[in-house]
């Protein structure tokens, strides 16, 4: 990896157990760091809150999807059967709403599911195959058995040496700086 024209993303500390990581995250926040990110092989309850992330829009998006799905579903059927080409189908009323329920339901579920997933991916700013953290050799363990805490450079309180030491004090294993080329 060529070092010239590289910029600093932050410092990364590695921990062995979830407990240590959670503790460290807590400390970091108490120490006043704003832009902290944690990486763990599996979701850890409460960790997000510790690094100051409380609310996600995913449920709202899903709700919106559901509502629009329901409206589309029933609207479409009503329009087709009763408005644009009203036909006498076996003597059934033009607006046979009971018969329209299944499709309405299915579209509700479909829309909300799609919105939920797309929403989640979009909010996570994925796809993002390239990210500075990947430059750290040991980061591969983030998807296996190690737990990482990153203090990002954009944090006003961030100073490379200072923050690195701070992490070591939280007895993080390897503390490494996270760089990326321009």
């Amino acid at each position, binding site marked *: 990896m060529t070092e010239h024209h590289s910029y600093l993303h932050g410092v990364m500390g590695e921990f062995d157990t979830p407990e240590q990581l959670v503790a460290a995250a807590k400390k970091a926040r108490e120490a006043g760091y704003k832009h902290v990110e944690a990486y763990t092989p599996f979701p850890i309850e409460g960790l997000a809150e510790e690094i100051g992330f409380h609310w996600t829009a995913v449920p709202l998006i899903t709700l919106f999807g559901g509502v629009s799905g329901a409206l589309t579903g029933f609207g479409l059927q009503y329009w087709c059967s009763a408005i644009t080409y009203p036909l*006498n*189908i*076996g*003597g*059934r009323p033009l607006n046979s709403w009971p018969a329209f329920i299944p499709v309405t339901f299915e579209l509700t579920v479909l829309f909300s599911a799609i919105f939920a997933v797309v929403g989640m991916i979009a909010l996570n700013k994925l796809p993002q195959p390239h990210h500075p953290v990947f430059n750290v050799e040991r980061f591969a363990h983030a998807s296996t058995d190690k737990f990482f805490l990153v203090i990002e450079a954009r944090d006003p309180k961030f100073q490379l040496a200072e923050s690195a030491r701070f992490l070591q004090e939280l007895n993080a294993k390897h503390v490494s700086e996270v760089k990326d080329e321009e």
Partner: protein
Amino acid sequence: MSDMNDPANDKKLRILQGAPTPETAHGVGHHDHDEEEGDLTEREHRLDLADLREKLKEKSGKQYWRTLEELADDPHFEDLLHREFPRQASEWDEAVDRRDFLKLMGASLALAGMAGCGRPDVTKIVPYVKQPDGMTLGRPNFYATAMPFGADAVGVLVESHEGRPTKIEGNPDHPSSLGATSTLVQASILNLYDPDRSQTVQQYGEIRSWSAFLDAAQALATSSKATQGANFRILSGNITSPTLVAQIRKLLTQYPQAKWHQWEPAAGDGAREGAKLAFGRYVNTVYNVGKANVIVSLDADFLAGGPGHLAYARQFARRRKLDGPDSTMNRLYVVEPTPSVTGSSADHRLPMRASQVELFARALAAKLGIGSGVSISGEAAKWVEAIAKELQKDRGASLVIAGEYQPAAVHALAHAINASLGNVGNTLYYTEPGDGEGASVESLRELCAEMDAGKVDALLILGGNPVYDAPHDFDFMSKLKKVQTTIRLGSYFDETSAWCQWHVAESHYLESWGDARAFDGTASIVQPLIAPLYYTHSAHEVIAAFSDKPGTPAYDSVRTYWTEASTRLPESADTGWRKWLNDGVIEGTKAVPTTVELKLNAASLPAPAAAQGDQIEFIFRPDPNVYDGRFANNGWLQELPKPVSKLTWDNAALVSAKYAEQQQYAYKVKSRGGEHGQVRSPVVDVELNGSKVTAAVWTVPGQDNNTVVLPLGYGRSRAGYTGTNKGFNAYVVRTSNALWTATGGKVTGTGDSYSLASTQYHFNMEGRQILATATLDEYRKKPGFAHELGELPEKSNSLYKEFAYPGYAWGMAIDLTKCNGCNACVVACVAENNIPVVGKDQVMRGREMHWIRVDRYYTNTKSSTADNATGDPSEYQPALDNPQTFFQPVPCQQCENAPCEQVCPVGATVHSAEGLNDMVYNRCIGTRYCSNNCPYKVRRFNFLRFQDWDTPQLKLLRNPEVTVRSRGVMEKCTYCVQRINNVRIDAEKEERPIRDGEIVTACEAACPSEAIVFGNANDPNSKVAKLKAQQRNYTLLGELNARPRTTYLAAVRNPNPELEKA
């Protein structure tokens, strides 16, 4: 299809009005626009391969084949074939699939042209050069003509689309039709377009020109002149054409020594001989069935067979018209060996072996004081008692009819009884027989003897098919070989033609001039609707070929005859001709009643053969569909379920249920199709009169226990693609001394089984509200009996508010009291709606396509829920000895709450504003859900490509008003919506409402009994509304609340209370 829709596709069209000469009527109905019609009239031009390649060079794909097809109709082409491909040429004669042969041709000519399949981008419009007057493009014309059949002729109106006859309707002005048609009449139009029809003159199987034949005929004529025609013989069937008879008579005067023999395999001569026996001379008997209160049929199927049966059926049905409980009905007793259409709709039916009927007749006569009494026992005795009483009661208004296949004595006795009851002049009258209706086995016997003795050098066979259908003891074929010159006029190159030196292709009655007499003597001109499709000629022209004026066109002969004959008529031919053509009948030709005095001494009649205990009696009967075999190549008739047995595509040795049980015949309903589909039935050897035939067995409930029926007309070896090798040939065991009834034979099981295709095997209604029946008394006591089995739920029960039908509300009422199950409606529907023939295999898979079916139920049988009876003939139950038979035509019921519509995912079947259950073929994707959800199972699905899109002749046949359905779509009855629309458009243009009876569906039009009535149910004065208002009116499976527009009027029979309680 677009070709079919486009009237302008027919080039050079002439409507045959007035007196066109055959030449001017040439080349009608060419619908293939992208090809030149080669002028094939000049005789000299010969083809060779080079020309052929030339002709085909620039053609490709479809056109290529079309051109080849067209060429194939060119005699020179066939000529060429015989020069280039002798071996395949023989195949050609055997009328194997012509298309296969053409493909083979194509291959052997190594021509390109497979390319460019698929729909062409441009279609062409091919207008006339000079448009014939009196026609409007796109509007069918109707022309009156008549179909000669046996000793009768049925007057018809033929629908013609730009010169293509497409549909046959009855002619209301014609005595034999009264507007009705039979299955055979309806189907006869398919024969016109049959690609297997013989197409040219042939000598020893080689194509010859007509002129070549004329020369040969003249040579023969001159040579016969010397011997006064001593060695010249003519063989024909019954001829009702006055012109033809006159021509033959004239010929016979020129050759005094020559003889004219006649043979009809399926027409009994009992009637003629009976008359002779009774009155000392031949007379025809004409019945006024309508005037009779009591009718006794001695093995006579007068409602569905024999001269005048359509008229009789109508008269009969009109006497069974019930307006209310106080209406009266006539009463019909039938004594017969095997259930016929007439027997099945009788009030009383007594199964009795054929040979016993004479005994019965004598007993009855004796009871009425004619001749000496004979001992008759059991049920029959009770019958004689009861019937005699009734006949006495209704003197002058009763009628005894003897069956066509009964011996002379029975007919004589019937005459005697009618005479003694004073019925003559009331319910029947006698007329002088037409010359030329003298067909008899003796006539043929004489001919055979002479041929055998080498007395015959030249034999002219007009029609018929003696090699196939002559009694086998005559061994006609070998006799034929002894004749030097044999000339055959036939519409097919069949068994007989194969052994004749000359074969002249015979014209169809729709493409040639002629005339014919009806059963009551009324004559009609037979006018062609289309110029001959092939190089065919009529009997008139063939006879003329031997006269001193060879080459006289049929038209001239007919016209000349009537010019002379018209001197005896109210109008002369010159003034009346147009009118005759227009009306379809010649005024003043109806035969006048002749007076006869009874010479019969009943006592002197030879004693009838005593009953031979339980010895098996074989009876021969013409098949209800293919008759004597002449309709064997007619797909519509082959696929038509036979009225009583519901068999298709085969005949079978018919046995009674009890006999089947005694012989332990086991029927196996195969899972393929099953109850309507494939039934494996046991195969037996029938040994009779020293020869043997192998046949499948089929059980017919209600047949006499010791009777085995061998239906004629099957087992053809050279019928054509459709008819060859179907069923078994009963003629093989038929001898001249036992034409109708034979004993001394035996039936032995072979252990094999054979697959029969039956469209209805289960005969029990399982206690469901399907076919409501009652006796007249019950009906009078309880007029609403039809509603007992469950009734329509109140409309108010519905959660939904009803759709309103403010305009027309099309509906149909089918009177089951009138319906006799004759099947005319089924074939009419097939003809009108371009319904494909699917073949035996598909029928066995339960995939027949008929839009209307006639169900047959036995009401007094055990249901399969009760004591786990099977409810089908595979298991014996006493009721099957003489079950009560009822028929029920089932078209689409046009439900207002249609279950089919609700489940169609694409809305391919929806309701029209007039309450029709529309079926939109082009929207259908074929999920078959609608059919599953149809309680009446009237929907039909194109599982494969059933339509024949290739054969050009069949394209000519199609009704351009109806979409031709292809593979993968559902289809069904739509009340002939094309007819509704056309009438409505006309009414709309005149801004008037549609009149009642203005729209007539195909089935309604064909029905001889007027059992089907269609109309606007919203109009209280319409016929249909009135019928629906009757208490007899009920809904099929009403409890389902599908609210069909088709309703039924319950069947009421009028049995004799005395016999009832007995």
